[in-house]
């Protein structure tokens, strides 16, 4: 009898042990971001956005009792390094989903994501090709083409029909320039001139002077670095035409600079609740910047998907995560958005920089 009881206790203990493991299973996800090199500043913001959201979920007990762990890989914003990191995370760590950033690395990983059925979530890159790169690539930001279309219509609607383009001579800048070349005439405007600058270059005077010589009503901008210097030199040269751009303009140092007074741009609407922003600042000692919020929002979406899958006791794979995400469709997290395709439809504001603040003057969407 004693032997029977001992056996029963042992079986019960084994069941409890295995049951416990099953309940407390850690869900491993991946993130391939530029944590060193020139993109490290943005990559670190993205990493913090993900980790901050994950820490909050885990502190509340995880998703249906399952803790989440994100394995971060550094790709230095390089496509080749991204491929190595992707294979490592998928083949060795068996992650079903990976956060990515930057257009080049994300486009490089997209075919692999399709082949291996791994969900890629991009919350930072905006190249137009990302919209169709893979059925397993979900973009939580609109593409640059969507934003350019919105700002072009607004600018032409304001009567500024003669435009000059200032663009960065790299993949992102050229993509933006090409979008302006299509969208601005389509909105009823005319492109008079275009001038490139090099990435990281801060002497914009020659290009600004040449563009000013074409006497435009508006300068359409597609640069990602040196915006503050561009604004200051625009002011120093006494130029008067309107300056318009996209979400890239949302740089606190640019907004605060009096030289940028009157600059207009599209802006993905992000309202970080004060308590959340304060909690982030307390943890990291810095403000909850744009990319922190973007990746926090993307992580919230992933958590919602995992919550549904674990509640329904479905397997967590890239395919099931993608299908569930598209089935949920509407997310009301930090950035309310809807997935009518694999690129989110989001609220887009038209903002103008005024007295050191970014003031919303019109609310639209990229639909």
């Amino acid at each position, binding site marked *: 009898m004693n032997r029977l009881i001992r056996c029963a206790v042992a079986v019960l203990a084994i069941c409890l042990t295995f049951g416990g493991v099953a309940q407390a299973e850690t869900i491993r996800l991946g993130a391939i971001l530029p944590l060193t090199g020139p993109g490290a*500043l943005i990559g670190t913001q993205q990493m913090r956005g993900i980790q901050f959201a994950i820490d909050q979920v885990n502190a509340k007990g995880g998703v249906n009792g399952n803790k989440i762990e994100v394995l971060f890989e550094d790709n230095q914003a390089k496509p080749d390094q991204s491929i190595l990191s992707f294979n490592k995370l998928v083949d060795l760590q068996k992650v079903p989903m990976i956060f990515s950033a930057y257009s080049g690395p994300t486009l490089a990983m997209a075919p692999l994501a399709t082949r291996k059925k791994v969900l890629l979530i991009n919350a930072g890159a905006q190249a137009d090709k990302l919209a169709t790169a893979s059925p397993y690539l979900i973009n939580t930001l609109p593409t640059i083409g969507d934003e350019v279309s919105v700002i072009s219509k607004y600018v032409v609607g304001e009567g500024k029909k003669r435009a000059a383009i200032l663009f960065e001579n790299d993949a992102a800048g050229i993509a933006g320039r090409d979008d302006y070349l299509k969208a601005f005439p389509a909105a009823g405007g005319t492109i008079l001139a275009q001038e490139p600058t090099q990435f990281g270059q*801060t*002497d914009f005077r*020659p290009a600004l*002077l040449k563009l000013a010589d074409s006497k435009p009503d508006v300068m359409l901008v597609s640069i990602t670095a040196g915006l503050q*210097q561009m604004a200051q030199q625009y002011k*120093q*040269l006494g130029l008067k035409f309107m300056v318009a751009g996209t979400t890239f303009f949302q740089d606190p140092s640019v907004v605060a600079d009096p030289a940028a007074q009157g600059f207009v741009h599209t802006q993905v609407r992000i309202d970080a609740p004060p308590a959340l922003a304060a909690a982030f600042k307390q943890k990291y000692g810095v403000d909850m910047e744009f990319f922190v919020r973007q990746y926090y929002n993307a992580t919230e979406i992933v958590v919602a998907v995992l919550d549904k899958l674990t509640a329904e006791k479905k397997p967590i794979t890239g395919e099931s995560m993608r299908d569930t995400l598209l089935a949920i469709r509407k997310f009301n997290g930090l950035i309310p958005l809807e997935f009518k395709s694999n690129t989110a439809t989001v609220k887009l504001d038209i903002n103008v920089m005024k007295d050191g603040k970014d003031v919303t003057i019109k609310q639209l969407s990229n639909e």
Partner: protein
Amino acid sequence: MLAVQLLVNGFVTGCALGVVAISFSLIYATTKIFHVAHAGIYTLAGYLAWTFVSHGVPDIAALLLAIALGALGGAAIQQFLYAPLERRKATHLVVLIASLGLLAVMQNIIAAVYSANILQFPVPWGSRMVAAGSIRLTWTQLLTAVLSLAAYAGTMWFAHRTILGKRIRAVASNPFLAEITRLQPQAVYIYVLAIASAIVCLPGVLVPLDLGLQPYGGITPLLTATIAMIAGGVGSISGAFALSVLIAELQNLSLLVIPGEWSIGITFFIFVIFMLFRPTGLFTKAR
């Protein structure tokens, strides 16, 4: 209006570039070291001045402190890197690689300490305008042109009118003869690195004062200055300075006739053709 403003902007840029070129020329002509880490000193000077200004040090004092520390840095590089390598009979290639390595270390440390963001000097007067007719310049641009011309004149005077300047030219002309006539080339090399580093700190502070600071911002000016030095004639201070101004003017004025993306390529293509016909440079050695 456009052409004149481009001409003036090109002159300001060329003057700053000219100071980088004469300081690099001073080092290369004397030590025969392709001192790539000079770009690191150029960058470091800006960050040091920014740190001093941010901590309330008066602007002029911050510039002078950055120049003094830059000079010390240059002397230290010669004393603790190049001199030991020379004692071990390192080839020019090894010295170049060591210099490149040092530049990478300096840039990475600067990026780690100050971040890779573009930093602005908290100096409001720097962006105030001076207008003469249709020409508009900032005070920083004006100061850059004036002080660069002064640095050029000062370097010419130093090289031709002072005992140390003549000693440096003697060592540059014939290091072996300088050794046996007790001109102590090794000591001269330390002076040269210190003086050239001090000189390069001037544009190292003034250019970022106008355009912002970046950890990797020293490479392009150094590359252009090197080309100006070679095209001007190695060892010719005037040649290096004049060619720097010419290159900057060509880059600016070429915008009048060609799109900006071709500006750098066409400018340097002209120099490649030029070097084919005059490989010793425009100004022959004028030591």
